[in-house]
């Protein structure tokens, strides 16, 4: 059991009367890769800035390694940040950029030189010491920004959408790079992104945020397979979110048809939402289906076909490697394990608050 390195306790923050974070509490384990995931304006960057010391929360406490650092200046904190758009010092060369923090701390010249060498090797940019930041590509600048942060041996590296400005291919390469770095350094990474794929690929632990509240946190598998509410289900990957009725334990009525499921304790004849991932919808011949419908659209996506099926008055999104032409009558079945039941919130407000309790 690893210990909690960072504790955020009841953090609230508002700008110009607009609530950005509302009573947010979060703990981050040592040596984990934690991702704050959410749409823009959900409060994830503000959370990171509060941790970095660039914002002070209106109320609440930031505890780092057992000490309250809520009011501590950024330069006194044992963590370093990799900023969006790199924020390199354009008047200094690469070596001077990386040495910036070490020179402030009055480290010896030989120590600094060793560190620069080590950091450049770590980010695969050996020999770049005397280049200027402007002469580097976006991906290279991002690596230097990471090198500049890690030479200070922080216990936590904060990363604020560091890959946002890169193109898709580079972004995927950098994802593997970051996982490798995290494992080599053995420190905690706190990563902020709005890209769910990035979050799923890299994280040990994902915190899904929306409107200043934590919607759900857990491992990538748990977040993907067992979303606790419609927001999470919708934000993480594609999904079919369908209003349904929990008839009794392990039986749910979806669009008039009864499906076996594995969830219990929702009560009897209780209105719920079910989430079914498009790849979990199985298309069979009409007579074998729990529900029957008709394929309306099909798109080839490379790995699979993306189809929409009109069935039971609902437009189902289906991913399958086998194609069914539009107009084909099909049956729909779903494996009981692949039906995720969620309590249906009574209102939008409750939807936001329910996961914060």
């Amino acid at each position: 059991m690893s210990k909690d390195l960072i504790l955020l306790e009841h953090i609230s923050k508002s700008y110009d009367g607009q609530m950005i974070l509302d009573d947010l509490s979060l703990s981050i384990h040592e040596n984990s890769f934690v991702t704050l995931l959410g749409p823009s304006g959900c409060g994830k960057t503000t959370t990171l800035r509060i941790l970095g010391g660039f914002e002070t929360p209106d109320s609440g406490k930031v505890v780092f390694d057992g000490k309250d650092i809520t009011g501590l200046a950024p330069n006194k904190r044992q963590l370093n940040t990799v900023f969006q758009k790199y924020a390199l010092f354009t008047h200094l060369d690469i070596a001077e950029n990386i040495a910036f923090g070490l020179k402030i701390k009055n480290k010896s010249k030989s120590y600094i030189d060793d560190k620069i060498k080590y950091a450049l090797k770590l980010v695969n940019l050996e020999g770049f010491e005397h280049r200027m930041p402007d002469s580097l590509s976006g991906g290279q600048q991002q690596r230097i920004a990471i090198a500049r942060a890690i030479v200070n041996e922080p216990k936590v590296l904060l990363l604020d959408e560091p890959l946002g400005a890169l193109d898709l291919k580079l972004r995927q390469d950098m994802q593997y790079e970051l996982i490798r770095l995290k494992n080599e350094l053995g420190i905690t990474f706190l990563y902020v992104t709005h890209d769910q794929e990035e979050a799923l690929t890299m994280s040990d632990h994902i915190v899904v945020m929306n409107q200043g509240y934590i919607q759900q946190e857990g491992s990538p598998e748990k977040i993907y397979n067992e979303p606790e509410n419609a927001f999470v289900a919708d934000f993480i990957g594609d999904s079919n979110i369908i209003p349904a009725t929990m008839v009794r334990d392990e039986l749910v009525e979806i669009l008039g048809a009864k499906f076996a499921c594995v969830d219990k304790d929702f009560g009897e004849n209780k209105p719920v939402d079910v989430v079914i991932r498009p790849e979990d919808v199985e298309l069979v011949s009409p007579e074998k289906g729990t529900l029957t419908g008709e394929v309306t659209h099909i798109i080839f996506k490379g790995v699979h076909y993306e189809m929409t099926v009109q069935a039971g008055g609902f437009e189902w999104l289906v991913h399958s490697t086998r194609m069914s032409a539009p107009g084909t009558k099909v049956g729909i079945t779903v494996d009981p394990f692949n039906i995720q039941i969620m309590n249906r919130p009574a209102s939008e407000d409750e939807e936001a608050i329910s996961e914060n309790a």
Partner: protein
Amino acid sequence: MLKSAKTSRLLASPYLAWAFIFILVPLGMILYYGLTDDAGAFTLQNITYIAKPAYFKSLLLALELGVISTVICFLLAYPLGMILAGMKLGRHEFILTLFILPMWMNFLLRTLTWMTLLERKGVLNDILGLLHLPPVYIINTPAAIVIGMVYNFLPFMILPIYNSLSKIDDNVINAARDLGADPLQTFLRVTLPLSVPGIISGITMVFIPALTTFAISAMLGGSKVLLIGNVIEQEFTVAYDWHLGSGMSIILMLFILINMVISSVSDRKEAG
């Protein structure tokens, strides 16, 4: 391709003609007059005249007042630039406008106003009299000239400095703090060096007009304080000695050239 090159040459021709008639020709004339005597023979006498005490003194004083004015402008403009750059969008525009507004008024009129303010029986001494304070005699001293120059040239220092400061990404400052720099270290190691291009163009835009001014010194310095600009003006308009006036102008141009070389070298360094 050929056609468009032809077109662009055609479109550029009025400007080239302008540059030729109003920049190159006068420059050539100054060089000609400066390096010849009345008989049209080549001489360096007009240039070496600068060594005469009266002329040398006016050059030294112009340099001294120019440097003092530039330094004062810088000290006033830099903090203001920082405050403006730190302000939220929209609010800084109002304050910038306040500083630029006087520039819409005629330069001579603005300087004339300072005459009225600083005169022996001027507005400033009236106010001091009302407060039962002793009057001050600033008009016709170098101090009056410095006041006039700072007032007139300050916006030329503020704008480039504000411009370069506002271009610095907040996260670059945050990054310095994040890496352990305290606010003073952040300023000295990041903010100041990143604003050097603005500082240099500000210095150039204040120092050169300050060095060459003759209107401000004529109005606020009276006939008692002569700057090299006044000497040149008098050679042309009073003594009608175009040769000597041109010679002095060449000296002044050398200083301007030195200033521009320094600023372009540091600009190129900045560009990497």
